[in-house]
């Protein structure tokens, strides 16, 4: 009797482990349009409304816990923000004057027909799921293809860039955050305009990095990094220009290059409400997104603002 029980126990364990390994191998080996991915998308479609309902019902509990954390965090930041506010007020007066001149120049050179936020239709979404482990920099949101959300659409919140959409279902979508190893963003140092590609720092999931900046690039700690909108003159990035990404936290000199570390502005571990920038049909971003989505995963992910998507996008848009 005992032997029979032990045999059955071992057989079940072996079967479950084997099934897990088969799933793992099949999932890893198939394309994003494969059967298991489709099952996952189908499941997302089913659970998204349930998650949304549960999320809404349990929001007060989450807010209560969040309130304690936010109160401590806010107290710590208050003094810093006051100082920053004074400095920014002084800067604002100067900037208003600069902006007026800038707009005149834009009109003069007819450069305002490029990629603008007017090409996008923001869709507000609630975050309804987030993994606990740090190996997945993704969140699930409650808006999907029925709201116009498509793969590769940029996602932002009040602080800045969050990431891009990587999977969609009718009533839900998965967003890969900018700290995900599969996402790269064309960016520039806001103060100097120096361009570069922003990647997550390997091994430090909360830090971003710009590698291979020329050694003479003017950049210092505290500078802001924003999306550049283009990575070359050949075509647009998937991310519109000027979205804040982060603040430079350190600058490493490794002649002949500089490596810049960036702390993301958005609190990526406490996201609640985000905006998906869905592209208006026929606009340049829509074409760039469509072409990038058609690329193999390893190319399209690299080219969230990357060369391949950009070049193909420009070809696709006739540029």
């Amino acid at each position, binding site marked *: 009797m005992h032997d029979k029980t032990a045999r059955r126990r071992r057989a079940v*364990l072996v079967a479950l482990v084997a099934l897990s*390994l088969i799933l793992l191998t099949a999932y890893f080996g198939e394309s994003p349009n494969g059967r298991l991915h489709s099952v996952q998308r189908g499941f997302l479609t089913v659970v998204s409304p349930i*998650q949304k309902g549960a999320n809404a019902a349990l929001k007060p509990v*989450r807010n209560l*816990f969040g309130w304690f954390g936010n109160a401590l965090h806010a107290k710590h930041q208050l003094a810093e923000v006051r100082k920053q506010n004074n400095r920014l007020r002084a800067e604002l007066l100067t900037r208003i004057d600069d902006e007026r001149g800038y707009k005149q120049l834009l009109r003069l050179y007819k450069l305002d027909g490029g990629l603008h936020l007017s090409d996008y239709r923001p869709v507000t979404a609630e975050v309804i799921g987030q993994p606990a482990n740090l190996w997945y920099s*993704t969140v*699930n949101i409650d808006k999907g293809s029925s709201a116009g959300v498509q793969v590769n659409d940029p996602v932002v919140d009040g602080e800045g860039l969050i990431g891009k959409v990587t999977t969609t279902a009718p009533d839900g979508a998965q967003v890969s955050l900018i700290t995900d190893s599969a996402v790269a963003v064309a960016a520039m140092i806001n103060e100097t305009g120096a361009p570069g590609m922003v990647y997550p720092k*390997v091994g430090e999931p909360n830090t971003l990095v710009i590698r291979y900046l020329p050694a003479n690039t003017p950049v210092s700690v505290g500078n802001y990094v924003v999306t550049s909108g283009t990575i070359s003159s050949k075509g647009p990035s998937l991310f519109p220009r000027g979205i804040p990404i982060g603040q430079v936290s350190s600058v490493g000199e490794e002649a002949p290059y500089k490596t810049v570390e960036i702390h993301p502005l958005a609190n990526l571990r406490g996201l609640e409400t985000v905006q998906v920038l869905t592209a208006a049909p026929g606009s340049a971003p829509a074409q760039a997104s469509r072409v990038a989505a058609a690329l193999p995963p390893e190319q399209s992910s690299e080219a969230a603002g990357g060369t391949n998507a950009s070049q193909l996008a420009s070809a696709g848009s006739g540029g």
Partner: protein
Amino acid sequence: MSSQPNGAVVARVAALAVVVVFLQTGIVSEVPIFGVAIDLTPLVVAFVGLQCGSLAGAVVGFGIGLLVDLTLVQTLGLTSLIFTMIGYGAGRLRELRDPRAALTPLLVGAAAAATSMIGYSVMEIALGVDAPVSLELLRQIIVGVALDTVVALPVWALVHRWLAPSLPEDPRQRRRSRRAYTTGGLSPLSKA
């Protein structure tokens, strides 16, 4: 747990699995403490194993793991594999040692959290994810295990309270009670 699980146990375990996955993904993961979120799922898997045995632990581990992978659109089979081992391991501990100490759930919780986090790291590195071991990763694992250990006892209490009414009485527990009664230790008369 008896060799043939009754319907009430299965229903309670299934409800527990669904609730814990939604609670984890919808709330707990969004409240980071020291930059790390508590992970209730390996704790629940381990405690189901600790209470119901290795077979149930492995099956529940596989189920909860699959649910997590499907809900969060993660690599399918990865969490199932790790949680199957956690559930089975906790169940075997109960079957071989029958630990009765009050701190057992604390140690089992810590071991489950550590197995889960280290297991993820090893599997992800084996699958070629570009993230070698770093101090930050180590810090997150240590903080994560510490947080899970802190909540292990309350989680054990809830899981135990939820499952105990539907479980058949453990023969070993019955023998222990009888022995204590006949030696006077737990006699209701001795309390009078």
